[in-house]
């Protein structure tokens, strides 16, 4: 079978799985629509959160960008994962404990002010809008590649599908769809990471493979990358080009931004107990760990320099 046929087959299968889940878990009450009736297990919720986290950006662009940026790319790794620490320690359990549907509800009740609530609503909409704009563009790009349509049509198709899911299943449907999505994504991340690691360094664990030897001459992978970078006229891979202050501020911004993502925060309302909110933050993080440290570490574009044409 040709690559095209495989693509249609696999995309078709995963979509029918998602739609099947959406139909199976239709929401039947307000509580189910907004917060999945608080009946989501911590593990499932963690997986769904991790699927939120492994968004279009991290799947399409980040791996390449981080590998190209070398040490400077560390801002994204630390920023996005460090934000989860803030989320898990400072936000998730306490918001859940307070027990409302949304963050603006919390702000409004906590500060006894409808104005504060309104400001929070505006912020949430603004953040969501900016975020969705980027994500939908990513969706459009994915569909334009799979279906051979232009990006605008891809965006419209993507919107139609998301609309269908969201109306039908609400938070409940989306959560279980995302659990499935998580399994697909983590598989798609780990398979190449593990195999590239085996091919390059003979080490099954990508995190260890990063420090492994490459080729017959017994050079460390990162030293090889340093050398390549310098030979091509860039900075060595493991030395940064940004000033520490820049790196510090960008990391801080990314961390605080990650902790504030509305669609991630609302996830912690869907579990039954405060305890579960804590636990699901942990599970979400486990997912993020795999993405961040193996998916994000050894990447085809960087490695194409070392083993040309072996990986395409």
């Amino acid at each position, binding site marked *: 079978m040709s690559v095209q046929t495989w693509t249609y087959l696999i995309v078709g299968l995963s979509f029918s799985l998602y739609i099947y889940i959406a139909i199976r878990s239709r929401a039947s009450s307000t509580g189910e629509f907004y917060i999945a009736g608080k009946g989501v297990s911590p593990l499932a919720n963690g997986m769904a959160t991790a699927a939120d986290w492994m968004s279009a950006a991290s799947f399409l662009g980040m791996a390449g960008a981080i590998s190209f940026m070398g*040490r400077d790319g560390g801002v994204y790794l*630390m920023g996005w994962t460090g934000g989860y620490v803030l989320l898990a*320690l400072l936000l998730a*359990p306490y918001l859940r404990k307070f027990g409302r549907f949304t963050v603006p509800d919390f702000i409004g009740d906590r500060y006894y002010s409808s104005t504060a609530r309104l400001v929070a609503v505006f912020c949430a909409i603004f953040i969501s809008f900016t975020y969705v704009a980027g994500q939908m563009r990513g969706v459009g790009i994915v569909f334009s590649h799979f279906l051979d349509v232009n990006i605008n049509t891809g965006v419209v198709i993507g919107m139609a599908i998301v609309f269908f899911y969201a109306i039908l299943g609400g938070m409940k449907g989306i959560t279980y769809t995302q659990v499935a999505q998580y399994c697909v994504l983590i598989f798609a991340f780990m398979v190449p990471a593990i195999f590239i690691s085996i091919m390059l360094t003979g080490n099954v664990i990508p995190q260890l493979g990063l*420090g492994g030897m490459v080729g017959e001459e017994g050079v460390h*992978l990162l030293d090889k990358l340093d050398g390549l970078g310098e030979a091509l006229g860039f900075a060595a891979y493991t030395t940064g080009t940004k000033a520490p202050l820049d790196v510090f501020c960008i*990391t801080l911004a990314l961390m605080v931004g990650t902790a504030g993502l509305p669609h991630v925060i609302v996830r912690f309302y869907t579990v039954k107990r*405060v*305890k579960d909110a804590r636990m699901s933050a942990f599970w979400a993080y486990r997912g993020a760990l795999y993405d961040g440290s193996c998916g994000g570490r050894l990447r085809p574009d960087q490695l194409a320099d070392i083993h040309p044409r072996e990986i395409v």
Partner: protein
Amino acid sequence: MSENSPPESSSDPQSPTEPTEPAALRFSSMTPQAYWRTNIICVVSLLVVWFLVSYGCGILWVDRLDQIRTPGGGIKLGFWFAQQGSIFVFVLLIAFYVVFMNRLDAKYIGKKS
């Protein structure tokens, strides 16, 4: 879940409050102030570690740490902290927080839940 649930919880599934908690708190031997202080100490100390590994080892002292190499010699230590080490520590931090707070809650509420 599979058991017959009491009428008040099934009739109002979207109730945002958790009525069991405040009642259970009265049986506790720990004062709310003590509970909250322990909570804050836990969060602050975890955040100190969080800051040290990411902003400290990964960014501020990265060049000094780069002169050391990880066991096996493959990776400079500062680079490792920025790219992997901090992430591993983050997981441990969250795991510790979950266990610690669950224990604290159990102690505070009494052996009730």
